């Protein structure tokens, strides 16, 4: 069990059988008054957010969360299949559950899959991934846009802005937290 005094930003707690992560936290205590723990939380399954103020006598359960090292195998329509690298057990997450993460999944990529009550709910990607550029128009000098980037598409179908020297067939490193170009990877 967790006590109200354990609450802080980033802590995961269980409310009504659902796992929540605290996204904002403020400790308050008016003069001579009682301690108040003001939290904003996000449901780790549905993404719904809500705010709640707790008092010091409240107790919380730890959600049964577990991270397992898994390998991405393939996707079949909306289902993305993963395999546990130790037990070889397989499981899948939906495209909706993965959100923007689908942009960076490569076959055989190793990542952490988060389970709640034995069900997969989320993945944590490596911070940097390197992906093959599959579509890149040559950069037209004197482009009227005035910007010094151009759009390309990588092997997963994800489109992003890169510097003009990147060409089809290059591998580029992308920051999975922001989705932005980092550098060109030399083979």
């Amino acid at each position, binding site marked *: 069990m967790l006590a109200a*005094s354990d609450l802080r930003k980033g802590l995961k707690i269980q409310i009504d059988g659902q796992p929540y992560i605290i996204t904002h*936290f*403020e*400790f*308050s*205590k*008016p*003069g*001579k*008054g*009682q*301690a*108040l723990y*003001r939290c904003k939380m996000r449901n780790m399954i549905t993404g719904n957010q809500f705010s709640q*103020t707790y008092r*010091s*006598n409240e107790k919380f359960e730890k959600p049964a969360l577990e991270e397992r090292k898994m390998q991405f195998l393939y996707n079949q329509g909306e289902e993305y299949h993963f395999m546990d690298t130790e037990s070889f057990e397989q499981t899948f997450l939906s495209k909706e559950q993965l959100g923007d993460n689908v942009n960076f999944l490569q076959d055989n990529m190793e990542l952490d899959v988060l389970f709640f009550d034995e069900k997969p709910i989320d993945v944590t990607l490596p911070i940097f991934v390197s992906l093959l550029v599959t579509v890149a128009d040559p950069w037209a000098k004197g482009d009227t846009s005035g910007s010094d980037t151009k759009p390309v598409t990588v092997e997963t179908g994800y489109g992003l802005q890169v510097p003009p020297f990147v060409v089809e067939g290059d591998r580029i490193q992308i920051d999975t937290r922001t989705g932005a170009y980092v550098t060109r990877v030399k083979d």
Partner: protein
Amino acid sequence: MLDQKRLHQRAAFFQAIRRFFHTHGFLEVDTPIRQPLVIPEQNIIPIPSGTCFLQSSPEMYMKRLLAAGCEKIYQICRCFRYGEHGRLHREEFVMLEWYRLDADYTSLMEDCVKLLQFIHSEIVACSFPVSLHEGWEKLTVEEAFQRYCSISSGTALEQGRFDVLLVENIEPYLGRQTPTILYDYPLELASLARPKNDSSKVAERFELYVAGVELANGFSELTDSEQQRSRFAEEYRKMDKFHRRSEKMPELFLQDIGKINQAAGIAMGLDRLFMLCAGEVSLDGAVTFQPEDLDM
């Protein structure tokens, strides 16, 4: 850890506070930080130190000095309160307390105006977030609850919502243009303060707010030993069993306050005041070391 410039500013800040009280004829005193028995306050958990507790406030011993005949005293000291950590809280913090014999809480309000104006004029690059030189806002607790919550403070107290409403619906609006003095608290929330008059349900207690930040808590002292004894008993009764340390009464203190005719005292959080001077919004930018800077 604070940078060199901020450390110098913090040192100048403490010097200015001492200069202010010295100029106004206050005696600087010191009292025991480790106390075998601390004042029973239901919402403060003291931190043990051997067979004693670290002080959560020097209040008890400051008042005993008043009983011994000191007329104007002040102290800058460290206080400790278990489990308080956040943007505006630390378990260890610097407190300023000052007391005046033969005075009531209105004298302390005037002291606050003069002190903040003095600090503002003395500290180089003091970026106080509000104007200190216009008339300060004064609001009773009842007026604040009516204005910001459309509910009486008595009803809020009965429903157990007083603290939540104060923190969420009132405090953010206090001390926005000028500092705000919030005064006349329900008697239940002022266990060491004097009732406004004998039959009153409010006590002569006030809090000073600047930019939504609670800076100080002052009151006209309760000097009736028997009334103080029953208020302490009430605090013990409300304390949760887990944190009730004993039900012992501070007899020497109770004996001494009966000797005081009239007095007033106030406690001000200096880390918070310095934070505002430095234009910061969190104690992280005002306190020398952060908890995460410490060796574990």
